[in-house]
């Protein structure tokens, strides 16, 4: 694997640690997003949005 030029002068432990952390960041973001979806966050937001829309609708057409 060809390393980025800035990494060539770093100790191997730095390269290994940073690659590991990069993988961890990607995993954390994907896992966090998945967890939010599975926890029903979009549905909750949608319901909140629905409520808001109901309020607006009542404001717009009070009759």
């Amino acid at each position, binding site marked *: 694997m060809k390393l980025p030029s800035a990494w060539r002068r770093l100790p191997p432990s730095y390269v290994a*640690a*940073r690659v590991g952390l*990069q993988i*961890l960041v990607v995993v*954390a973001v994907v896992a966090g997003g998945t967890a939010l979806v599975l926890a029903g966050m979009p549905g909750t937001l949608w319901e909140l949005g629905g409520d808001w829309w109901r309020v*607006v609708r009542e404001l717009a057409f009070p009759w």
Partner: protein
Amino acid sequence: MPLIVIPAVIAAYFLVVYVTVPLFLLAVSVGMIFGTVVAAAGYLRVLAGAEDDTLMVLPGALGRRGPRAAYPRWDRAWPVYLAWQADRDLHAALGMPRRLVARQFRWIWSYLSDAEVLPVLLLWSPLLLPAIGFCLGLSVGVFAAWAAIAVTLEIALLGPRLLAIAVAGLLRGWDQTVRWWRASASMCRRCGWVMAVPAFRCDRCRIIHRDLLPGLLGVGWHRCQCGRRLSTTVIRAAGQGLKAHCLHCDAMLPNRPPMATSARIAFAGPAASGTSSLIRAASQALCGGAGVQFVGGPRDLLRVATLRLADADGGYFVDLIDLDGKQFARDPDPPLLWEIRTTRRHVLTVDARRLAHVQDLRGTMDQERYDAELAYRILVAQLHRYGLGSRRCTLAVVITRADVLVEIDASAALTDGDRSSDHVRDWLARRGLENLVLAAERDFGAVAYFLTSAGSAHDNRWMPAEVPVMWLLQRHRHGVGVA
């Protein structure tokens, strides 16, 4: 009121309700999602080395260390990634997203603060509010995602950090225990500095590493700035073949294993009290025996004579330190006796010819006298001055030039063949040095008295010169080396 106003108000109302508010919420949501992506990208970018030019903790750039460190400055070696760089990377990951957010707000503010553009913006305010919502969502998304990722990474790094601390502690404990058991230490031949942990020179770039112990610069190995991997701990560094150097003056240390047992004996006494003769005689006596040899050359006898003695464990080294005699005739504190702190084994020489009582009996009152008690007081004061504490030390009081005592009647009581320590002690106490005897037994952990005559032929009436040395070597068999 013109009739046009009413439709305009109604149109604005519907514009706000059906365009601005939904767009605002949508912009906030999109901003938050985009902020999360930007925060993650900030991490990936920093971890890819994009900001290494300003971010990297380079060898030798760490500055001063804490007051309890083995050496005031850090070695020129790469720190462990987990020690500094990991936190710097996590902190720097916020830099790019923060700049992006700031740029968005500056862009909006540049329009809001422009008096010519503001009326137009107010006209287009239904679309301006979603833009502001996007910026707010972006800000929240960036900072929340950055914090969430940082907490996740810190938790993930906690395990390796604790493991590194535990392994470093074990390695240090093992190394220190072995050094303590063997009482190993190295003494510089140039400056006399004694160190339990010497410096080691990198065998590739020749840079000296002064603290090659497990720590923030590496647990199992330190990575020299040239890239060479150097084993930590004295045992493993010596096993790697690294050359030991003096911590104080960088001189190469004597070619002896850094883990070899090492003992030092400091010889105190006024000038011309027979100290150097005693060292020379003891060295020659020990060098004449089987398994004993001189390690240093003749010049070393000026300050330090190093002997290598063989024993069942493979041999050990003995440094006989000749303290400057001139310093023991001065009052107040002499400044040049720092070598005294390097050992707990001490010899105080008492020249029989210079004692007032003996001079009176010999009729040599015109010769120079000295105050043995003054020399003793200076010795004890120096031990306390350097924090060694005389109670932790052992003292051998050695009467030199015993041959002259044969000439006088008063010596008969001393040179009658009884060479025991108690016998010599009683003689000294009866000859005006009772205060010295009492003080020595009060101040030191152990005291013994010897009668020798270094410059004369062997005689059964006094001890061979090496006996005090061998007695002291039996004391303090284990220790951390420096004292």
